[in-house]
């Protein structure tokens, strides 16, 4: 018998609830974040800083007294002189891997391709990753998955659709808790399964003696056994446990735009591994260095050897070519003063307190969200300002269309326009600059809905039905004095976070 949708949803929901039923907390709620790998903490702190709105050092060219480096060899802490607009201020992240606890997931990685070729991965690519920890939880939810038989046991085949560094993989457990993953950007599932069957696994060591039939001839180009898998998750490619590494950058709260530059100690083998994980296979040049570029669904990567024994990477999302070029061209080593003044990963208490002060405190009225909603000629619209997530989102719900555009921008954005699928209805929304109480244009002010935000600002939204979007918007104070005039930014419904998952609704 075929179930109708409601029945199917209820069955699936029951299944979901049942799956978590045993997760009863055994202790009190968390009052501070447990110690974590620095790489993981770094991104968390990034988000906390974005919420807190902590003022940070603006990078300038004025203070270059001393170049700031690590050691073994000197690893410069690169920073961009031209930091992309629209991003929260950059933060600096020391990646002292010696501090990582034994909880982290060490992995051995071997990368295969065609040696001597301009693009060693052009004819085919392969990575074989082994770990004493289960790597399958990392892959969950990243795309289409199914169980497969591999080497006589059950394995997990994943075709990632979320922009993960690992596109397609097969993962299974071998003896004694050892797990193996074969992964590729170019091989299909059948080819990966053939590779998996062809692997020789003995005493925990995994070797591929020869490419199986139907798989491009691949040679081992790189191998290392002290990588940390956790850094793969949050900071792009894996980095050796012993490597000194630094990261500078930030991302928007809705994740649609990011810029990070990483410098780390690494050899030629690491360079290959990093290139594979970032899909950087197109030759280019960065500040006079031979480099490789990769692009994947809006994300961009650049990898190069900054100096002997030092690898540099730029990992971005949502930047224009011009923004990326300007930022990369402006990279330079930070001075000690600059490095010290950048916000670092202060781990728990200080950041948490700062976040509380900025996000909470006396100014907080009663909720963390201000919202506006209404109808227009052919549907509904809504705008919400979320103090916790530090984001401002606008949405349209046309009656007739399947598509419901929804976009989130930073909570400081004063004027954004979102269009409905038909293109005739526009939603102008934003948070007014401090001191402003209404829009300067009388017609817009008359049509606008406004409300106060929890942190004492004014949220507004205007429906422009059949009218063109203004190119700029003026804001005035109670005495009708202009406080600011700002350009209007057209936001793409693609800024919907779901777009990262390849959804189009």
């Amino acid at each position, binding site marked *: 018998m*075929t179930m*109708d*949708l409601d029945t*199917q*949803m*209820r069955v*699936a*929901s029951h*299944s*979901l*609830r049942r799956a*978590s*039923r045993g*997760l*009863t*907390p055994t202790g*009190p*709620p968390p*009052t*501070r*974040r447990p110690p*974590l*790998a620095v790489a*993981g903490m770094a*991104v968390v702190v990034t988000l906390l800083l974005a919420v807190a709105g902590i003022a940070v050092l603006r990078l300038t060219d004025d203070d270059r007294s001393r170049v700031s480096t690590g050691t073994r060899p000197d690893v410069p802490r690169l920073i961009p002189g031209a930091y992309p607009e629209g991003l929260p201020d950059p933060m600096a992240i020391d990646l002292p891997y010696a501090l990582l*606890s034994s909880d*982290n*997931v060490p992995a051995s990685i071997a990368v295969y391709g065609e040696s001597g070729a301009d693009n060693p991965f052009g004819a085919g690519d392969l990575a074989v990753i082994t770990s004493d*920890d289960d790597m399958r*939880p990392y892959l*969950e*939810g*990243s795309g289409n*998955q199914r169980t497969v038989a591999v080497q006589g046991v059950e394995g997990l085949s994943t075709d990632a659709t*979320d*922009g993960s560094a690992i596109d397609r993989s097969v993962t299974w457990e071998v003896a004694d808790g050892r797990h193996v993953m074969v992964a590729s950007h170019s091989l299909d599932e059948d080819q990966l399964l053939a590779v998996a069957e062809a692997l020789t696994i003995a005493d925990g060591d995994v070797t591929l003696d020869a490419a199986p039939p139907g798989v491009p001839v691949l040679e081992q180009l790189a191998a290392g056994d002290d990588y940390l898998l*956790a850094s793969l*998750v*949050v900071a792009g490619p894996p980095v050796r446990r012993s490597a000194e590494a630094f990261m500078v950058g930030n*991302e928007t709260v809705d*994740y649609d735009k990011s810029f990070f530059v990483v410098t780390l100690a690494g050899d030629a083998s690491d360079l290959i591994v990093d290139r594979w994980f970032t899909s950087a296979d197109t030759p280019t040049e960065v500040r006079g260095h031979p480099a490789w570029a990769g692009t994947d669904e809006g994300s961009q990567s650049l990898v190069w050897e900054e100096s002997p024994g030092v690898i540099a990477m730029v990992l971005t999302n949502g930047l224009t070519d011009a923004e990326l070029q300007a930022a990369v061209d402006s990279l330079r080593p930070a001075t000690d003063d600059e490095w010290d003044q950048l916000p670092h990963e202060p781990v728990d208490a200080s950041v948490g307190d700062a976040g509380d002060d900025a*996000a909470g405190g006396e100014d*907080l009225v*009663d*909720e963390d*969200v201000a919202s506006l*909603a209404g109808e227009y000629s052919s549907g509904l619209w*809504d705008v*919400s300002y979320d103090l*916790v997530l530090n984001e401002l989102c606008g*949405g349209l*719900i046309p009656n007739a269309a399947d598509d*419901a555009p*929804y976009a989130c921008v930073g909570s400081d954005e004063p004027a954004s326009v979102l269009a409905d699928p038909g293109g005739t209805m526009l939603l102008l929304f934003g948070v007014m600059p401090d001191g402003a109480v209404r829009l300067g244009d009388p017609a817009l002010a008359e049509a606008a809905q406004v409300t106060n935000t929890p942190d004492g600002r004014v949220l507004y939204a205007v429906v422009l039905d059949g009218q063109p979007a203004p190119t700029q918007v003026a804001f005035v104070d109670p005495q009708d004095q202009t406080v600011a005039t700002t350009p209007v930014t057209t936001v793409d419904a693609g800024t*919907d*976070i*779901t777009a990262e998952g*390849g*959804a189009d*609704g």
Partner: protein
Amino acid sequence: MTQRAPSAQRVTLEELYRREFSQLVSLAHGLSGSRSAAEELVQEAFLAAHRRWETIGRYDDPSAWLRRVVVNRSVGVIRRRVAEGMALTRLGSRRVLPDALPDSDERVWQAVRNLPRRQAQVVALFYVDDQPVHEIAGILQCAEGTVKAHLHQARQSLAQALGTALPPDDVSDYCPPTHQEVER
């Protein structure tokens, strides 16, 4: 404006933690698709609640605040990866994860995750959390009509994606009853 409850009736964060934890993990699991990230996302929400409990604890329904944080944080790929990264760093402690879902149910939630973000949130709150429309509107801080519209569009899309039929009495403004309403 959220009404404030008398302080004598205030629920404690610990009570909320014990009462809501597994249900919130279910929500996060469905929306993020990741068992390892789900618990981490919920822990993050409770940590945020702890830091602002003086304010949140005075809300009529602090669990609505927690739900909003969880569903908002569960739909971002990067957020999920961060949570997974943190979960991975703690693999040594062998924390218990939610059970894996049967393939047929996993397919349903994959389809939900392919919906626009707000629609996915509404669906999860409606079906997993059994929240009626007006409560979902309160959680997501939007109008009831907005919730209904999202739910309607989501159900149309899900029926198409899953190749299943809508109930015969489905009309444009139809909202299915929640579990609780059915049981009543």
